[in-house]
């Protein structure tokens, strides 16, 4: 079974949790005990409809304030696919959660309140999905029931949103517009009988038809070594295997490879997955490789194909999303974790901050505050082996760690 991960984005009160609750309800994924709990709570709160947001708002603080404050993961499956929905909050101050949710997703649903249309937050949500190269975007125009299911309203919002498409940097992204009412169940799972003017698919139908080879961003094969496996048992006395995950493209037995940083050349001798040998390691598989030659390899080294080298960089130019209340300033020391590889870094330059409403950059900015996005140069104490984010979603990104608090304080996308 294939797994599709979908991030959701919307402003407060756009009905995101209700949409997810509706999907669960209409796909019969809510179990009786969960449904009973929702019914009970809805009644207690004095609502005359079922409050599906209760299915996802998991933390006490959220239930008290009626808002979602952290990424929650919701699971359901159909006959065709398994789905993971990352429910990410819409507040301005929670950009970090939205970026986090989008980073592991192949598709995104951006919710718009039909009464409000495209607002600043909508632009921000689309900007982040564009920045993170999420391939498949559904713009769900919600609360159609409150605008009399009007085609005119839908078309106006759609053309307003389409103006943003000219300004985006990730042109391969597909954007689909769907008019819905999450509360009433129109065009979420089941077709609405109130909007005969809409001939497209429902939200779920659209997700069901997505083709996986199409929505996973490919690239060239990269194999960062996580661990060296040396069992030193009688049966495997001289075994020396390199454990890791294959990113970008597949690796084959007999491939001519180069190990970075030593640039030693060899060939792939065997590919193991558990106790079985294979000819090919597909991308995203966690395998163990052996090489024809004895080479000194340790964690953090990278095995790549001979004719497909990444860039070896001692400095990085990247677009950074900053997630810490302590500002990012010139001269600040941080740890860059690129894949599994950690190096010390220093902020060399803050070139600008980028407006998330597509209105351009502020070149005079010299620091990033929490939730700011900007272009930053880093100097590294050791080289990393990178691709640009546009060519390689995994090998083109890194996280930033504060070496005092150990927290993850930002994420970077390499130029």
């Amino acid at each position: 079974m294939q797994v599709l991960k979908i991030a959701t984005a919307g402003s407060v009160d756009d009905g995101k949790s209700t949409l997810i609750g509706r999907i669960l309800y209409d796909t019969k994924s809510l179990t009786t005990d969960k449904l009973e709990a929702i019914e009970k709570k809805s009644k207690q709160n004095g609502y005359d409809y079922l409050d599906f947001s209760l299915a996802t708002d998991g933390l006490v603080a959220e239930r008290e304030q009626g808002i979602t404050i952290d990424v929650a993961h919701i699971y359901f499956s159909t006959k065709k696919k398994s789905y993971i929905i990352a429910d990410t909050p819409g507040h301005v101050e929670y950009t970090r959660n939205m970026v986090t949710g989008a980073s592991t997703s192949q598709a995104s649903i951006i919710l718009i309140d039909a009464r409000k249309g495209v607002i600043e937050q909508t632009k921000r949500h689309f900007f982040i999905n564009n920045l993170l190269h999420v391939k498949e975007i559904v713009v769900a125009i919600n609360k159609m029931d409150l605008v009399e299911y009007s085609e005119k309203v839908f078309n106006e919002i759609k053309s307003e949103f389409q103006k943003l498409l000219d300004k985006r940097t990730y042109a391969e992204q597909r954007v689909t517009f769907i008019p819905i009412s999450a509360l009433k169940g129109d065009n979420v799972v089941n077709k609405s009988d109130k909007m005969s003017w809409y001939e497209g698919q429902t939200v779920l139908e659209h997700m069901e038809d997505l083709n996986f080879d199409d929505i996973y961003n490919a690239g060239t094969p990269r194999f960062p070594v996580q661990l060296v496996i040396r069992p030193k048992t009688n049966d495997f006395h001289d075994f020396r295997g390199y454990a890791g995950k294959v990113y970008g493209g597949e690796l084959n037995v007999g491939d001519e490879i180069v190990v970075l940083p030593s640039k030693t050349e060899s060939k792939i001798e065997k590919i193991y997955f558990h106790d079985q040998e294979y000819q090919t390691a597909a991308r995203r598989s966690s395998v163990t490789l052996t090489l024809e030659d004895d080479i000194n390899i340790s964690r953090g080294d990278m095995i790549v194909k001979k004719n497909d080298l990444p860039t070896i960089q001692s400095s990085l130019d990247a677009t950074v999303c900053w997630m810490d209340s302590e500002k990012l300033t010139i001269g600040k020391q941080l740890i860059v974790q690129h894949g599994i590889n950690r190096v010390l870094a220093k902020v060399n330059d803050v070139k600008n901050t980028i407006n998330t409403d597509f209105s351009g950059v502020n070149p005079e900015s010299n620091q990033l505050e929490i939730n700011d996005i900007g272009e930053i140069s880093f100097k590294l104490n050791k080289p990393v082996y990178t691709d640009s984010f546009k060519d390689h979603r995994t090998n083109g990104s890194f996280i930033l760690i504060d070496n005092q608090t150990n927290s993850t304080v930002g994420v970077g996308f390499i130029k």
Partner: protein
Amino acid sequence: MIKSTVNINALENEAIYIFREVVAQFERPVLLFSGGKDSITLVKLAQKAFYPGKIPFPLLHIDTGHNFPETIAFRDELAKDLGVELIVRNVQDAIDQGKVKEESGRYASRNGLQITTLLDAIEEFKFDACIGGARRDEEKARAKERIFSVRDSFGQWDEKNQRPELFDMLNGKIDLGQNVRVFPISNWTELDVWTYIESEKIEIPSIYFSHKRNVFQRDGLIWSADDSIVYRDEEETVEELMVRFRTVGDMSCTAAVLSNATEIGDVIEEIRSSTISERGARIDDKRSEAAMEKRKQQGYF
């Protein structure tokens, strides 16, 4: 024989990647083993991650003293087969030392009492990473759990200040005294676990399958009457039914379900068509709407 292409089971590959990160990033990892299907699945994944090496960390079981005997026998057998060290720490010891107080009454359970014993064991062995089989689909508070979840020196979960996890990069950097709870099968559902157990032909304790048992009914749930540990009122009458357990926790808080599923295929069919969630039969979650979140803040899984 050399096969053609490694089959991509996204969840399995993700779990193996996480196991390898744990061993690379921490000095004293341990796998929390309850004898339940989720922790048995973890053991299988760990074997795959480090083959042909042995699993490079011990198993830790926090024994409430109220476990199903089938589970304990299964646990000992598995550890022996793997050649892996099994550490057992008993809740009874903490009770005897007066560190925790046994609950009383009809819903008395030792489930919550495990917290103290677990934290003591972490301190005793200086474990810096505890690998657990919790899944995000189990419960609302767990839906927000990270794969690497940092706990302070009191074992507490600060749910509002969690580290963001971007792409598949895992940040396990911690200070001395802190530890990390690791959940390699975070993204699996109950059905994913069962499907995996079936395809990998993994052995699991017999109580997961239909068997005859003396039971009584309370609050719409079916309780085992075979074990004196489960409190029963005089008027709660005992009957013999065909049941199985969907989760295997402490006997005092795990209810059975009516079932004729004798094979894994039957179990999978049953779960597919079930309208009750897995934890619907866990009385410990029903105490209040925020029961799990509260336990997690105190250091529970």
